[in-house]
């Protein structure tokens, strides 16, 4: 189901960094506000990872490991402040002993401080992670709550119209109900017993206005049982005389290209 200006095709190309900059910024903007597209993007990245992992494995040369560990070893030494310099030879033995003892104590103190610092950084990272996860969860819950609230308000509104669309009386025949609120600009479609479609095809919902051509309200694909529900949160506010469902390419068509599978008229 996709009611967005961003198609699944575009998301796949976005995940592969294969889009032009203008498209990238358009999709990035959309992703910030659309949980379902973000989820689909993660799923596409996982699909791409599986493609990458089909690459026959080749071992890197052993020198690559040596080079890497030499570099991180150097970094560790720098983090500890480097190796201590030798004491000056001009001082008496007792002074040298004192210096070495002091240096040893400083080194121990530095080591303890470094360990404490690492522990605190680890705790800080953990706390940031927990905070981030909670914020993300909170945002998702807020979005779900907001959506549910809109649906409820629309279902309870007196001005909301409900139009059942059906092809026939038989129980297993495809049927759908369109719930449309012109004043809220929202359209909800609940369908069942929809026939499964070939790949690259989807159902497209149309608003049939009193005047003018049908207006697309989005495309959807039913689940394995033929059920589908689609919320169009920014439906055009028009005086509708009915609704129709046609079979179209999965990216949607600008105008219906096939006869309606389901159609329903607004009761006069």
């Amino acid at each position, binding site marked *: 189901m996709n009611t967005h200006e961003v198609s699944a095709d575009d998301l796949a190309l976005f995940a592969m960094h294969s889009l*032009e900059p203008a498209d990238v910024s358009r999709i990035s903007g959309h992703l910030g506000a659309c949980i379902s597209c973000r989820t689909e993007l993660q*799923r596409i*990245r996982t699909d791409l990872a599986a*493609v990458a*992992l089909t690459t026959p494995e080749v071992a890197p040369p052993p020198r690559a490991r040596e080079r890497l560990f030499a570099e991180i070893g150097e970094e560790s030494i720098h983090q500890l402040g480097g190796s201590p310099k030798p004491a000056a030879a001009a001082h008496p033995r007792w002074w040298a002993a004192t210096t070495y003892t002091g240096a040893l104590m400083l080194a121990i103190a530095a080591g303890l401080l470094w360990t404490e610092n690492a522990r605190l950084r680890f705790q800080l990272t953990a706390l940031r992670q927990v905070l981030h996860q909670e914020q993300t969860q909170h945002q998702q819950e807020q979005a779900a709550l907001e959506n549910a609230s809109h649906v409820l308000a629309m279902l309870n509104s007196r001005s909301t119209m409900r139009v059942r669309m059906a092809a026939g009386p038989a129980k297993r025949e495809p049927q759908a109900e369109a719930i449309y609120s012109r004043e809220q600009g929202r359209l909800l479609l609940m369908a069942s017993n929809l026939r499964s479609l070939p790949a690259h095809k989807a159902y497209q919902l149309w608003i049939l206005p009193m005047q003018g051509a049908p207006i697309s309200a989005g495309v959807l694909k039913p689940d394995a049982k033929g059920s589908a529900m689609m919320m169009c949160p920014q439906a055009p506010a028009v005086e509708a005389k009915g609704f129709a469902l046609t079979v179209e390419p999965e990216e949607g068509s600008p105008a219906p290209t096939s006869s309606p599978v389901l159609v329903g008229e607004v009761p006069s």
Partner: protein
Amino acid sequence: MATAPNSDLQDSRSGAGRSGESDYRLVTRIVHRDEGAFGAIYDRYSRVVYSVALRVVRDAGIAEDILHDIFLNLWRSPQQFDGARGKLAPWLAVIARHRAIDWIRKQHPQEDLSEVQLVADEDLAGEVERKSAIERVRVALNALPEKQRVALELAFFQGLTHADIAAQAGEPLGTIKTRIRSALLSVRRALER
């Protein structure tokens, strides 16, 4: 992320290779600057990163540099790996591909590592499950219609934009987009089987 206090993640089989210790535990130890854990992760996944990078850039020296940079990044910022985002092998494979494509295009990295989020797919997590899943994907890729397979290869492993591919094939942009998407849907079905 490595520091997430989630015992399920810590005890999961994710990436538990021959050493038996999970990726999650090893990355947590790397946060504590544990070079032994870093070495275990390197030994477990350097082949994946190097192979993917080599397939894209086709130059052993460049692939070695990409391998070096990715693991150095993992050592410096292990918290960028989030166990909840996906397992380490698929994550590293995607990062290797992206860095290699960036190199081909002479670009700076296009996104922060922490932005590359994957679904946690159990089929790609453990070594045994991953081998089985990847074999299914390999079969699915071989069974793709030639034009779909070529479009995916050009976009994913050669870094061509869909506009480049359309121009090269002399076909509409929409056709190329659909081919790539269809190929990926076949991959997904193979993973879900």
